[in-house]
């Protein structure tokens, strides 16, 4: 179990999470839901180990391999989509996930692709990396409804635990995720 006890996190100009206590199960999917600015991304960054907590305790992530789909695509602009995925796994896995994400020509450079395609390449990379926990920050950004459903059907239940940030409950349902509201 991943446990956050009375966690506070902030930036120099503002506190984002204050005295937050949460428990995530070892398996399944959990969707973090809240309006913008309530700290969904910050919480995912804390879980990824990219943001240090100011107060409280975080446990249960020791020795866990975490894959993180950032809010931005963060693809290397000078290598092909295929290479971007290969760099975190191997060519077989890269090809598999790019096919699952319906990328027609993986030899293209990121700037030659549409926003939706870049998002799916970033998703393919996060999926190909492998590990124990998958963190997804707005995974369906820029994807139309039909594509969201197809992508969700491929990525759900692959990792033991998936934690994602979403804007509406429909996205959480697509992933079969239990909703945790950060604004309540």
């Amino acid at each position: 179990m991943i446990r956050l006890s009375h966690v506070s996190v902030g930036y120099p100009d503002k506190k984002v999470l204050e005295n937050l206590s949460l428990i995530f199960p070892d398996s399944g999917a959990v969707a973090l839901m809240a309006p913008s600015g309530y700290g969904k991304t910050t919480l995912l960054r804390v879980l990824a180990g990219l943001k240090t907590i100011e107060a409280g305790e975080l446990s249960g992530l020791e020795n866990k391999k975490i894959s993180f789909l950032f809010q931005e695509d963060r693809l290397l602009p000078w290598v092909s989509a295929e290479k971007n995925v290969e760099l975190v796994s191997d060519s077989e896995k890269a090809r598999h996930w790019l096919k699952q994400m319906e990328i027609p020509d993986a030899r293209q450079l990121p700037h030659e692709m549409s926003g939706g395609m870049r998002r799916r390449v970033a998703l393919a990379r996060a999926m190909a990396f492998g590990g124990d926990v998958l963190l997804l920050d707005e995974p369906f950004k820029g994807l139309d409804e039909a594509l969201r459903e197809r992508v969700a059907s491929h990525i759900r239940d692959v990792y033991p635990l998936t934690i994602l940030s979403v804007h509406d409950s429909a996205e959480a349902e697509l992933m079969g995720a239990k909703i945790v509201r950060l604004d309540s």
Partner: protein
Amino acid sequence: MNRIKEILRRVLIGAFWIGIWWAIAKVVGLPKLLPGPGETALAFARLCGTEAFWRSVGMTLLRVALGYGCAVVGGVLLAVACHQVKGAEMLLSPLRTVIRATPVSSFILLVWLWLKRGHVPVFISFLMVLPIIWTATQEALGAVDGDLREMARMYRFSRWKKIRYLYAPSVRPAFLAACMTGLGFAWKSGIAAEVIALTPDSVGKHLSDAKNYLEYPDLFAWTLTVILLSMALEACLKALARKRKGEGK
């Protein structure tokens, strides 16, 4: 068709400036002091037929290339050290400031006392290019996208992968621009060092001799040699950079 037009355009521009040179030489009317394009071409053709010309050109190229190569390697190493090691920037930056602020002629005269004549141009080329490569590479390293660095950390990129796929492509444009600028500096400062140090078997020594013996057509011919070699080197470096860019995909 466009290629032919481009070549024609360049030939016409070249012909225009050679025409201006010819006109000025004609007006002055002193071919021994201000030779025109014809006299210079004849002197150049005569020099090309001598063994001393090719030996001097070869040795000058070798010296400049050696100094330039060492500066490129040294500049990158210093940039990485300043970027990675805490305190290195503070310790090393006065060295860069001194090299930049000191006139090249002062350095030539100083090292002339300490080094062999043949080594002076190598050292001077090295010294003039070092801060250019160092500064550009260090600034480019500092400007590598923080989001991509975080991504590389998250996806556990090895050190080699980070260098090959993140740092090298990020730094490449600034590094290549610095290499291009540095090449001109290496070439000019190296030959200036040869002129002052009277380095045997060198273009600079022949330039100096031509001036001392008032052989101005030869002086112009040696200067033409320097310009042509500089253009050829720059073209080579540009072609190499284009090839590397193509391979990068």
